[in-house]
């Protein structure tokens, strides 16, 4: 495989950061040269364990996802019937948890757990990034921060889906879709915390804000809290759950949120640049890929200039000189 400039940069950076020995570097380069240019052949042929092969999320991120996931559903279940209490469907749901007064207490308790999860997440990403910077392992492309490349990836992915490209773009650890989703969730969380706190502590907000806008602020928060909740619920049901349960290759469930691991197949298809880093960082993955390339007869013949100096490789005729 002839690496693109971006992929080459990722491999070189990863080799440098991981202080890979010269011998290992040669092994990695040899393996990359053996890979077919058509990446579809790679992820269609590779064998994956559905519960995950390669590391993706730390235990902290998994705990945060679990806390957010459980509290989000329970908050929606207790909150929406409070907001739409006069609707026919809301009364039995409110009654099921012991009435609106009980429901309100549960809702506020769960909200504090969700806020704890947010703070925990902020600590994780701040300290994690600081640690990476100090140890010289920080790579901006490997983070969730949106870059111009994501716009290019989005365009190329749409062209692929429209049949205008043979392969999906080479995307990094977080692809454009995940970045949009992450920041939408972060924005939604902020709206919910801000508006929720204005219901709980109206006096504090009134003392902070100028008297001329405090009533309008309260009114705005009162409108935004249930509607942002409804929006979030729709996004989760029709976008997130599609991506992690129903999308081809993920059905019936993507296990990353439990095991912290991603399947080899998925990594190659949607996060190829991260897969290249895995090849540098995990020797077992190199062995796995090597075996697969040999077993499936996918080894790409080396370029003539990379052949031994005498060019004498059995069974291959030298290219005719022009």
């Amino acid at each position, binding site marked *: 495989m002839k690496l693109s400039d971006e992929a080459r940069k990722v491999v070189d950076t990863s080799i440098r950061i991981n202080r890979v020995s010269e011998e290992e570097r040669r092994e990695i380069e040899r393996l990359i040269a053996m890979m077919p240019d058509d990446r579809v052949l790679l992820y269609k042929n590779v064998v994956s364990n559905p519960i995950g092969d390669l590391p993706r999320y730390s235990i902290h991120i998994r705990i945060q996802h679990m806390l957010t996931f459980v509290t989000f559903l329970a908050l929606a279940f207790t909150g929406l019937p409070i907001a739409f209490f006069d*609707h026919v469907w809301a009364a039995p749901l409110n009654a099921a948890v012991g009435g609106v007064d009980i429901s309100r207490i549960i809702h506020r308790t769960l909200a504090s757990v969700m806020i704890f999860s947010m703070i925990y997440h902020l600590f994780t990403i701040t300290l994690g990034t600081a640690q990476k910077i100090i140890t010289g392992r920080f790579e901006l492309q490997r983070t969730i921060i949106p870059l111009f490349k994501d716009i290019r990836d989005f365009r190329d992915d749409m062209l692929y889906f429209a049949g205008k490209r043979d392969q999906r773009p080479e995307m990094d650890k977080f692809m454009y879709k995940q970045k949009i989703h992450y920041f939408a969730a972060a924005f939604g969380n902020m709206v919910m915390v801000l508006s929720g706190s204005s219901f709980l502590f109206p006096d504090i907000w009134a003392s902070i804000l100028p008297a001329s806008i405090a009533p309008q602020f309260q009114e705005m928060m009162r409108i935004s809290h249930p509607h942002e909740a409804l929006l979030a619920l729709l996004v989760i049901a029709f976008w997130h759950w599609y991506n992690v349960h129903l999308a081809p290759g993920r059905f019936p469930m993507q296990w990353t949120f439990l095991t912290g691991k991603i399947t080899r197949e998925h990594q190659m298809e949607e996060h190829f640049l991260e897969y290249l880093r895995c090849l540098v960082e995990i020797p077992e993955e190199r062995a796995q890929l090597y075996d697969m390339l040999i077993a499936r007869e996918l080894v790409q013949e080396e370029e003539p200039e990379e052949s031994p100096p005498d060019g004498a490789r059995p069974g291959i005729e030298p290219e005719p000189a022009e």
Partner: protein
Amino acid sequence: MQTPLNWWQKLIAYGALAFVFFWTLFGLFVFWVYLNQ
């Protein structure tokens, strides 16, 4: 190509899928009632 799930993995995965399905169904029902209110 993915290796097949064993019985407890199937239980978790399809259980989660069923949960998602019923929650979505409930959401659609609530939305329908909301629009017809």
